[in-house]
C-alpha cells in the first residue's frame, strides 16, 4: 500500500538521473521507483512508517495467536484432559470395585447383604455416569472414544452375567458361580484393560496439553523486541534529523508495544508457574494416588479370588534360583500390595502440606494392618481352615476388608485434596492468561495506528 504511493508522487522529482530509453519490465520499473523514493526524505518516512506499523501489527497478531494457543491448552488441562483423566481413573475404580463387591457377595454365601448389593449398584452407576463424562470430553475418532465405546458395550453384558448369577444363586444352583466366574473373566480380561488403556491415553493427553500450554512464546517475544527496537531507531532517527525529542504517535506506539510485551512475558510466566505448580503439586500427586488406589483395588480383588478359586490356579515363580509353585491370586496380591506400598511412599513424598500428608499416612497404617491380617488369613487357609480364612477376609471390622475400605477411603480423601490443589493452581495459571490475546490485539492495533500517526505528523511537514 505504501510502496506504490511514494512511486507515483515522487516520480516527478526523480528525473535528475534520466532513465534509459529502452523498454523495461513493470517490476524493474517498480523497484526503480522505490529506490528513487528511498532517496527522498518523505519517501523514506513513508517506508519507515509502513514498516513500523506492520511490525507492531505482526507482533500483536503473533502474540494473540500464541497466547490463544496456550490459553486453549491451559483451558484443556483444567477443564478437559485432567477431569477426563480423573474420570478414567474413576471408571477403573468403579468397575474393579463392583467386581470385588460381586465376588465378595458370592464368597459370603447365602443371599448377598444389603451393603454389598448397594455397593455394587453404586459402583455400576458411577462407572456408567463417568463413561458419559468421558464420552463428552473425548474427541471423536480418538483412541479414547474407541475404549469408551468398548466399555459402554461391555458394561451391560457384564451386568447381565451378574444378574444371571444372582438368579441362579437364589435357586441354589452352582451354575450361578459359573456365571460369576464368566463375568469376572470379562471384567479382568476385557473391561479393566480397556479402562486402564483409557486412563493411560487420557493421561497422555493431559501431558500433551501441558506440553502445549507451557512453552515460552518466543516468536511473539522476538517480534516484540524487534518492534521496540524499530520504534527506538525511528525515534532516534527523528531526533537526529529534527532535534525533536518526542513524537506523540511513536511514543504511543512504543508504550503500547512495551505494555503488550511486558504483559506477554509476565502473564505467561505467571501462567506457566501456575501450570507447573498444578502439575508438580497436583497432577503428579493425583497420578501417584490413582495408581496406588488401583493397586489396592487389584490387591483386594486378588485376595478375594484366592478364596473363590480355592487353590485352583497356580503360577511358577523363580525364587532364589528355584522354581516355586504359588497360588496365582495370592502371588498377584503380593505384587499389587507391593505396588501400593511404593505408591504410598511416593505419595507421602509428593504431599506438600499437612492436609495432603495426613490421609496418605493413615493409608500407610491401614495397609500395614491389612498385610498383617492377610498373613493371618493365609495361614488359616494354608492349614485348611477355610471358614476361618474366609472370616478373616470378608468378615466384619476385624477382617482385611475393613483395612481395604480404610485404605480406599483415605486415598479418596487424599485425591480430593490434591484435586483441589490442582484446580487452584491451574485456575491461577489460566487466569493469568485471561484477556491477553484480545488485549494484545487491541493494543497492537493502537500501537500501529500510533506509529502511522507519528510518522504522518513528520510527513505532513513536507506538504
Amino acid at each position, binding site marked *: 500500500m505504501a510502496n506504490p504511493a511514494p512511486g507515483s508522487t515522487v516520480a516527478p522529482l526523480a528525473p535528475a538521473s534520466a532513465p534509459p530509453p529502452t523498454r523495461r519490465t513493470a517490476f524493474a520499473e517498480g523497484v526503480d521507483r522505490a529506490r528513487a523514493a528511498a532517496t527522498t526524505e518523505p519517501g523514506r518516512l513513508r517506508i519507515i512508517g509502513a514498516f513500523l506499523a506492520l511490525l507492531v501489527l505482526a507482533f500483536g497478531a503473533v502474540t494473540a495467536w500464541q497466547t490463544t494457543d496456550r490459553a486453549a491448552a491451559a483451558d484443556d488441562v483444567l477443564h*478437559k484432559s485432567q477431569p477426563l483423566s480423573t474420570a478414567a481413573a474413576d471408571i477403573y475404580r468403579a468397575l474393579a470395585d463392583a467386581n470385588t463387591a460381586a465376588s465378595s457377595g458370592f464368597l459370603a454365601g447365602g443371599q448377598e447383604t444389603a451393603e454389598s448389593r448397594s455397593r455394587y449398584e453404586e459402583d455400576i452407576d458411577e462407572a456408567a455416569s463417568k463413561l458419559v463424562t468421558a464420552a*463428552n*470430553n473425548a474427541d471423536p475418532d480418538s483412541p479414547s472414544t*474407541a475404549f469408551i465405546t468398548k466399555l459402554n458395550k461391555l458394561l451391560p453384558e457384564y451386568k447381565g452375567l451378574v444378574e444371571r448369577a444372582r438368579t441362579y444363586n437364589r*435357586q441354589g444352583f452352582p451354575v450361578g*458361580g459359573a456365571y460369576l466366574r464368566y463375568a469376572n473373566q470379562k471384567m479382568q480380561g476385557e473391561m479393566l484393560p480397556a479402562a486402564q488403556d483409557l486412563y493411560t491415553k487420557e493421561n497422555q493427553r493431559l501431558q500433551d496439553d501441558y506440553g502445549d500450554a507451557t512453552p515460552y512464546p518466543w516468536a511473539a517475544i522476538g517480534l516484540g523486541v524487534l518492534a521496540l527496537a524499530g520504534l527506538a531507531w525511528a525515534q532516534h532517527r527523528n531526533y537526529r534529523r529534527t532535534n525533536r525529542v518526542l513524537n506523540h504517535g511513536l511514543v504511543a506506539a512504543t508504550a503500547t508495544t512495551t505494555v503488550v510485551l511486558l504483559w506477554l512475558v509476565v502473564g505467561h510466566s505467571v501462567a506457566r508457574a501456575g501450570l507447573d505448580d498444578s502439575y508438580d503439586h497436583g497432577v503428579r500427586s493425583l497420578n501417584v494416588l490413582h495408581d496406588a488406589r488401583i493397586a489396592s483395588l487389584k490387591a483386594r480383588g486378588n485376595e478375594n479370588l484366592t478364596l473363590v478359586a*480355592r487353590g485352583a490356579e497356580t503360577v511358577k515363580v523363580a525364587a532364589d534360583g528355584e522354581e516355586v509353585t504359588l497360588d496365582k491370586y495370592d502371588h498377584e496380591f503380593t505384587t499389587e500390595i507391593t505396588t501400593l506400598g511404593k505408591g504410598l511412599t511416593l505419595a507421602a513424598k509428593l504431599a506438600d502440606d499437612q492436609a495432603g500428608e495426613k490421609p496418605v499416612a493413615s493409608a500407610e497404617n491401614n495397609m500395614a494392618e491389612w498385610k498383617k491380617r492377610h498373613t493371618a488369613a493365609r495361614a488359616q487357609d494354608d492349614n485348611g481352615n*477355610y471358614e476361618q480364612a474366609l472370616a478373616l477376609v470378608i468378615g466384619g471390622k476385624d477382617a482385611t476388608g475393613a483395612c481395604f475400605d480404610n485404605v480406599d477411603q483415605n486415598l479418596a480423601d487424599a485425591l480430593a485434596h490434591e484435586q483441589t490443589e490442582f484446580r487452584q493452581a491451574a485456575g491461577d495459571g489460566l487466569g493469568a492468561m485471561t484477556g491477553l490475546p484480545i488485549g494484545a490485539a487491541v493494543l497492537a492495533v493502537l500501537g500501529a495506528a500510533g506509529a502511522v500517526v507519528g510518522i504522518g505528523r513528520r510527513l505532513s511537514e513536507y506538504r
Partner: protein
Amino acid sequence: MNRREPVNGREPVNGREPVNGRLPVNGREPVNGRLPVNGREPVNGRLPVNGRGSVNRRLPVGRSVSVGGREPAEGGVPVEGGVTMRVRRVRAGLKGWGGVGAMAALCALALSFVLLLPWTTRSPGDGSTGRAGQGVAAGTQAADADCTDPEKRTPTPSSADGPTIAAIKARTGEKRKLIVGVDQNSYRWGYRDPNNTGAELEGFDIDLVHRIAQDILGDPNAVQFKAIPTNQRIPAIQEGRVDMVVRTMTISCTRLADVAFSAPYFKTGQQVLAPKSSTIKGYDDTLAKKKVCTATGSTANTKLVDDKKAGKIASSVVIAAPVPNQLDCLVRLQLGEVDAVVTDGALAASQAAQDPTVELKGAPFTTEYYGVAMKKNATDLVRRVNQILVEYRASGWQASYDKWLSATLGSDATKSKPPAPQYLSTS
C-alpha cells in the same frame, strides 16, 4: 490461528454433540463382535493337558519291548517293580508272545472270573490271592493290548500303612489334614450351595472324601479341600499339591501313565446335552455343523478330538475352545455360544437339573468309571483307598447316592453302580 482450529473443535459446547452422536455410529462393531469369543478361553487349553500325549505314553512301551522279551508276564514280577514296571513288562511280554499269549490270556480271563468272586465281599490281602491277581492282570492285558480296561489296573486292597500314609499321618496340629483336590462346581457331586451361609462343600464326591479322611486320620472333617480345574487334576497330583483327587475323574489309559487310580467308585458314560428344542439327537450325525463345548483336559474333549480326527463324527462338528470346568459349558450353552455340551452323563444330568430347558440327548456312547486319583508311586495309599472303597460299596455308597444323585440320575442306582472291582496284582 488456523492451527488451533482443532482445539476449538474440542471445546465443550462444540465437542459434545459430535461425540455423543459418534458413539453408537462410530460402531466398533467388528472389534466388539469378536470380543466374547476372545474373552472366553485361553485358546491353548486343549493341548497342554498335562502332557499326557500319546507320545509320552508310547515311549516306555517301546523301550520295554526289548527288555520285556525275556520276562514273560507270568514270570515272578519283582516287588519293587511297582505298577508301572509291571504294566510295561506285562504289555511288552504280551507283544512278545503274540497270539499264544492272547489265547492263554483268554483262559486266564475265564479263570479270573472265578477267582474274583470272593473279592467282591472281602479282600483277604496277600497270599494266595496274590497269584490270582497276576492271573487277572494277564487277563486284562490279554483282552486288549491297547488297554481298554484301565479300571482294572489298580493294586489289591490293603489296610497297611506305607510311606505315603505315614507321611500324611505325620502332619501335626492344624496341618493334620488330608489334602484333596475336588470340584466346587459340580452340582450334587462337589459344590457349594449358594444358599448356605457356611462355605462347606457337599455332594457325592465330598461324602467319599470324608469317608477316606475318617479312615486314614480318624476324623471325617480332617480334610483340606482344594478346588482344581479339570485340566489341573493331574499336575496337582504330580506336583504333590494334593494327596488325592476325588473329582468325577474318569479312569483312563492315558491318565494311568501319569497317576494311579483306585478301583472304580462310579459308572457313567459320555453323553450329549442340548436344548430340548435342538435338532441334536445324540452323539451322531445330528451334531454336524454344531458347536460343541467340552472342558479342558476332560475325557469328552479327548474323545471328540480323536473321533473327529478318525472320522467317527462329522468333520463339520465345531469343537469350541474348551472351558476350565464342565459347568462353564452350561453357561456357554445358555448364552447361545455353543449348541451342545459333551460331558460325562453323570455331570450332564447335573447340568440338566439346573436348567429345565436342556436335556440329555441319546444314550451314553462310552462306558467310563470314576476313580480316586493319587500319585503314581503312592501304592500304599491306593491300596488303602481300595480297601476303603470295598467297605464303602457295602455301606455308604447307596446312602450317598440316594441323598445326592437319585434326584438327577434316577432312584435306580444299578446303572451307576461300579462293577465288582478287579485288581492288578499284589505286591
